[in-house]
């Protein structure tokens, strides 16, 4: 009986120490979530301005923008897929994996993973992987992402890929996030093809401006989506850790009851023995 008691006590202690870890992880995730959310919100202004500028250029240009609006004659499509670098957010990564398995054709695509978890998974599952930019979301710096933007812009212009697509996690709210596909190249022409009302001076001309601004636009998109995925990742990790905490509490409660029962049973038995001994 005493052995049983010790065993339960040891389990309670071990669950307690695990709970300390998950609690700490939850706090870390909460802080990071808040930080990335702030970055995401302050970036909104910049990306909106870029998009509206591109819209102005595209609505005023005819053949100059053609190169960006049509698919190239290549047989491969490049998918940039954003996953996490760290664990303890399995649902976030799994959602992306399922989405990729469902939407990406292994034969005609090349995957460019961002985040180490994705790199391992896609390699193991027989995708063609190019992992040159895998650790870009470890410490998110704009100039690193700019390199990726310039790189994919060049690859598309050189006609190496039919299209370039981005798979990221869209953040709906702190408990809901869905994987989504975004067409980087070819660029979708803005739906509102109406005249914007004024015709600005283009310095030097539309063609050069489009060439100059597209890499900036692509970088802005990549940065925005990487940040959004980070927000989703942290939110997912926080939820996972919150659940782990709740489970730990439940387990501790159950174990404590078990422990008390066993202790009481031992006492009762001893009393019984003593009483029985006296009666003899």
């Amino acid at each position: 009986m005493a052995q049983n008691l010790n065993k339960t006590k040891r389990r309670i202690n071990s669950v307690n120490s695990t709970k300390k870890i998950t609690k700490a992880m939850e706090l870390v995730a909460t802080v990071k979530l808040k930080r990335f959310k702030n970055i995401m919100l302050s970036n909104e202004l910049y990306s909106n301005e870029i998009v509206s500028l591109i819209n102005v250029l595209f609505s005023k240009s005819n053949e100059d923008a053609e190169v960006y609006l049509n698919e190239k004659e290549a047989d491969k499509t490049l998918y940039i897929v954003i996953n996490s670098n760290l664990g303890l957010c399995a649902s976030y990564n799994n959602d992306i994996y399922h989405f990729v398995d469902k939407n990406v054709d292994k034969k005609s695509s090349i995957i460019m993973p961002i985040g180490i978890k994705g790199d391992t998974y896609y390699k193991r599952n027989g995708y063609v992987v190019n992992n040159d930019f895998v650790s870009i979301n470890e410490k998110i710096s704009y100039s690193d992402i700019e390199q990726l933007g310039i790189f994919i812009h060049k690859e598309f212009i050189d006609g190496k890929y039919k299209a370039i697509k981005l798979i990221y996690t869209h953040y709906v709210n702190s408990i809901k996030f869905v994987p989504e596909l975004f067409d980087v190249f070819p660029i979708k022409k803005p739906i509102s093809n109406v005249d914007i009302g004024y015709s600005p001076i283009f310095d030097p001309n539309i063609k050069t401006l489009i060439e100059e601004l597209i890499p900036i636009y692509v970088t802005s998109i990549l940065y925005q989506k990487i940040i959004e995925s980070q927000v989703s990742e942290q939110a997912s990790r926080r939820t996972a850790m919150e659940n782990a905490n709740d489970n730990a509490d439940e387990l501790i409660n159950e174990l404590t009851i078990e422990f008390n029962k066993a202790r009481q049973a031992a006492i009762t038995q001893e009393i019984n023995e003593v009483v029985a001994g006296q009666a003899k």
Partner: protein
Amino acid sequence: MSFVVRIITPKGLYAKLDASSLTVKLTTGYRTILKGHMDLVGALDIAPMYVVIDNNRRYYALHGGAINVTKDGVTLIVNAIESKDEIDVERAKASKERAETRLNSNDSNIDTKRAIIALKKSLVRIETSEK
């Protein structure tokens, strides 16, 4: 006669200024913008720029981007910008030397384009800090 200049970076709104004139370097050369300028879209070069506020020139190191002039004001959409006071001159000098050594070496692994941009940025920083 002043107009609004908004400077936007990926980190959000950097500054909103009430300027009487703005001088920036586009890829085609320097251009000064006054109130009532025609609508204009242009690409910015890596160069120093200045804004005149109450007859004082304020200098900034600009690291490329785009400019959009509309009747509501001027919007500068830039990757990075530093005012004269924010520039770390020592760091800029160090990065200039680093870029120069990289460009002078014969190593074929070096990304020349990147080194040139780094050199250009550090030169702009140094130039702006001396204004």
